[in-house]
């Protein structure tokens, strides 16, 4: 299996006032296509940074970031944006939906950037909503939905353009146990049935259970957690 | 209650810097509105002041019935003695009535900035100068009766070309040289004066335009007026000189005044909507602060009042700035409308009007937001992010 995501000798530091804080020192990571990887670790350990690097939202100071065969460190801002629209789906902790748009309109957003016809866009939106189980909520606004339902809209939006990779930043962080489980099952389904590669940052140990591979960040180092009694 | 209002307002103004730019919307809106209003009114106020300043209530002017201006009026040589002999007129040291038969005509002139204008040439009779103690010689000499020569007023000299002593003005029958400059402290400073009979001969006019008299006393006007109106040989109207000018003033300026208020009102409405917007936003931004006060025991009324006061203070500040700009740009500038030379005036009265206007807008604009501030459930506001 070829690697969907490759980080090689990545170094990333942030400027905090006059100080420079090194978050990632010489980090390397290979994620084959079709894997569902969970990434845990204390705050500030750099897990969100890894997510942002893979998603092209941030760039490293040195090293290589190769996603889907593309060397992200060589792309310009504009090229990264375009690439991102085709290849990545983001799922956020606080959903980041547009409050004034209906669920369907929210899901349609990534497709507005394509040249698909209106009817084609609407078809794909319906399919995405069907997958997440919200077909009958298409015309509802986020304010009319529960947290779990909003996150499902968020996932529908993330998959509507059929990207190969899903990046999830604490997707269950704001949900109660029941809703969290629903979301994680959904992600699992997307991984197993649609073959989507998923990299999920989380605090929740139960969330990590749903993944096929567990990683931990500790002081900038990646540690693999082997499944015990799978 | 008053104490509560003070405290809430003080708190409100402390948080105002955070809402600086939104608050500036009110200041700019009212500044523009009041600035435009006062600029337009500077024209009308200046004109009105110049005109009203010119009427002496101790004098009366007699014109033919139905005339709106001296130029339209015709007083024949037959009518004149009847008017001059009427009761109520003061007498001069020779015992003759202080009455002057005057002739006027319009004279086109060129302003110093090149635009066209016109002024009035006033022919004074024998008693013309005695009737006008305010007329003083500033330079040169008085015109001589019977000679084709004239004097110019200070205002005319400063505004028009070719008005210096020695210059010649084209009139019917030839050119008349300017021999002197006079001042009167009123409208006449924008005009030219000469001898009435000479003027009438040169223009081939047989008739006078008006008769100006000095009343024996302020109260003799009624006697004078009655004598003229009951005389079947005369069809004339008598008015106090001050009343005459009041009418002229309102007629000249009414169109512009209406226009100024229309423009001011329209802009005020625009500013009103801006005001509403800002104050709604302010209430929103202060949500938590207001809710906390309410929870602590402050009643709704001071909260509502604080919103309105915020609006009023900002609006008045804007109005003051607008007035200051209008004053700096326009006040004191000389201008002329027809033959009326005046100074653009941003008077204290108009500034007061502007501020009142602004307060009105703020009161209207603050009403709805203040109600919302008072009515918003405390619990919701505390929970809101």
């Amino acid at each position, binding site marked *: 299996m070829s690697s969907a995501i490759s980080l090689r000798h990545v170094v990333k530091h942030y400027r905090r006032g006059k100080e420079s804080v090194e978050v990632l020192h010489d980090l390397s990571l290979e994620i084959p296509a079709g894997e569902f990887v969970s990434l845990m670790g204390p705050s500030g350990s750099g897990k*969100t940074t890894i997510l*942002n690097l893979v998603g092209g*939202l941030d760039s490293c100071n040195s090293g290589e970031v190769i996603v889907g065969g593309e060397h992200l460190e060589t792309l310009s*801002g504009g090229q990264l*944006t*375009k690439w*991102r629209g085709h290849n990545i789906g*983001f799922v*956020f902790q606080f959903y*980041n939906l*547009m*409050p*004034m748009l209906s669920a369907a*309109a929210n899901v349609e*957003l*990534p497709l*507005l*950037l394509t040249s698909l016809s209106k009817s084609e866009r609407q078809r794909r939106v319906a399919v995405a909503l069907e997958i997440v189980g919200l077909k009958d909520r298409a015309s509802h606004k986020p304010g009319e939905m529960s947290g779990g339902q909003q996150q499902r809209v968020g996932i529908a*939006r993330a998959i509507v353009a059929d990207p190969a990779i899903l990046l999830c930043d604490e997707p269950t962080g704001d949900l109660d146990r029941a809703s969290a489980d629903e979301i994680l099952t959904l992600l699992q389904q997307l991984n197993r049935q649609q073959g989507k590669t998923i990299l999920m940052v989380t605090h929740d140990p139960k969330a990590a259970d749903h993944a096929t591979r567990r990683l931990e960040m500790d002081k900038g180092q990646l540690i693999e957690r082997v499944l015990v009694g799978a | 209650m008053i104490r509560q209002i003070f405290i809430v307002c003080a708190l409100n103004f402390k948080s105002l810097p955070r809402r600086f*730019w*939104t608050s*500036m*919307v009110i200041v700019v*809106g009212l500044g*523009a509105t009041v*600035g*435009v209003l006062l*600029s*337009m009114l500077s*024209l009308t106020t200046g004109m009105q002041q110049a005109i009203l300043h010119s009427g002496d209530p101790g004098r009366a002017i007699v014109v033919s019935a*139905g005339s709106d201006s001296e130029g*339209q009026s015709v007083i024949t040589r037959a009518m004149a003695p009847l008017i001059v002999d009427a009761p109520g007129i003061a007498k001069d040291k020779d015992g003759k009535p202080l009455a002057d038969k005057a002739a006027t005509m*319009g004279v*086109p002139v060129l302003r110093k900035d090149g*635009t066209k*204008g016109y002024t009035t*040439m006033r022919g004074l009779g024998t008693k013309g100068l005695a009737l006008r103690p305010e007329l003083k010689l500033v330079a040169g000499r008085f015109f001589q009766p019977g000679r084709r020569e004239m004097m110019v007023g200070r205002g005319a000299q400063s505004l028009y070309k070719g008005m210096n002593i020695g210059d010649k003005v*084209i009139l*019917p*029958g*030839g050119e008349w040289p300017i021999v002197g400059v006079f001042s009167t402290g009123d409208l006449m400073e924008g005009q030219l004066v000469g001898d009435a009979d000479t003027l009438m001969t040169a*223009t081939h*006019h047989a008739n006078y335009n008006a008769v100006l008299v000095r009343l024996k006393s302020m109260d003799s006007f009624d006697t004078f007026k009655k004598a003229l109106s009951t005389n079947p040989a005369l*069809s004339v109207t008598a008015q106090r000189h001050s009343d005459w000018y009041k009418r002229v003033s309102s007629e000249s300026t*009414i*169109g512009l005044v*209406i226009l100024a208020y*229309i*423009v001011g009102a329209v*802009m005020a409405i*625009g*500013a009103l*909507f*801006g005001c*509403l*917007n800002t104050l*709604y*936003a302010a209430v929103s931004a202060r949500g938590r602060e207001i809710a906390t006060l309410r929870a602590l025991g402050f009643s709704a009324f001071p909260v509502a009042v604080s919103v309105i006061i915020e609006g009023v203070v900002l609006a008045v500040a804007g109005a003051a700035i607008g007035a200051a700009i209008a004053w700096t740009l326009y006040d004191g500038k000389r*201008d002329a*409308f027809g033959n009326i030379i005046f100074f653009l005036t941003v008077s204290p009265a108009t500034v007061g009007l502007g501020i009142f206007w602004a307060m009105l807008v703020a009161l209207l604009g603050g009403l709805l937001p203040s109600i919302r501030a008072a009515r918003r459930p405390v619990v919701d506001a505390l929970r809101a992010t």
Partner: protein
Amino acid sequence: MKYFPLVWAAIMRKPARAILTLLSVMIAFTLFGLTIGMNATFTTMAKNARADRVYVGARFGGDMSLAMAAQMAQIPGVSMVAYTNGLNGYHQEKKNKVYAMMADAKLADTLTEWPITRAQWDMLQKNRTGILISRQQATLWHLKPGDDFVIASPQHPRGDGQPWKLRVLDIVGDVGYMSGGYILGNYDYFNKSLPLAKQDKVDQYFVQAGDPTHSADLAQKVDDHFANSTIPTQSITEKAALDVSNVGIDISAVDRDIALAGMFMVLFLTANGIAQSVRERFAEFATLKTIGFSDNGVMALVFLEAAIPCLLGAALGVGLASWITTVLPRLFPPGQGVPIPMMTPSVYLWAIFSASAVALISAVLPAMRLKRMDIATALSGR
């Protein structure tokens, strides 16, 4: 376009703010329309001014004599001379001022561009006591064809002492520079009915120049001819007469300044609104960027969010101004009208230009902030 729902949702996020902004913009553009429209009227009037017409009046006020007509016609370069004498009076009450131009027959041949048909001009000759009345005046006095219009005039009394009873023959169109409208009557009838001492007077001569390019010279020639006579003249070409900047107070500059003040007010309001809206929705814009919207795309969204209320407000405002011009004459006392503003295509173009400029300037700073935004920080800000 497909992005419209997104922009609309952004605008309507705070409906009260959107509506108030729209209303404020609309009001400012109403003022804009009225002032710039008035300037458009002046420009049109000056542009349409007849190059070959010279107005001749008495230099020092008062009336001219009929005898001057023959002399004027002899001046080389003059192709036609027509004249009017004015009837100055009032209708019923002294404050209802009326001014009627009692015209000689040749006026029909010189005022050919006025909206009066040959048949209508002929009516004046066939019915000597008749008048043609323009629409604005007809509305003012509530007159229709066939009505009698009684004018009392202390200044121009009839020889027999009666007031003037004139019959309305027809209603004709208004002319731009005749603010408040006009009334035309028959000179001959008017002249013969006056007392002897007031007969054969003229208050305005209309001289037509054979060569339009030299009408200014012709005006000077007329003045030179009468300079030493008993009634010196002051002549002016129509082009010069309609040049507004030449009159004392430069009204077109005043109009422009008022319009600018209104635009400044609107600019502030809009800029503030957009800045606030963008600030509130920073995370939303960040999300759009993660989805794949480009920097330019996001900036375009902000610009559209500013442009839609501005352009809509401009359209509504100028439309409202257009409606106001129909009631404008009623706001002023008779005889004190202002030129009616016209919403010409150029006015609309200026409105669109101004609205776009306001939107652009308002959107610039917030858009720049979005461009420079660090997506990662913006997203983590939640």
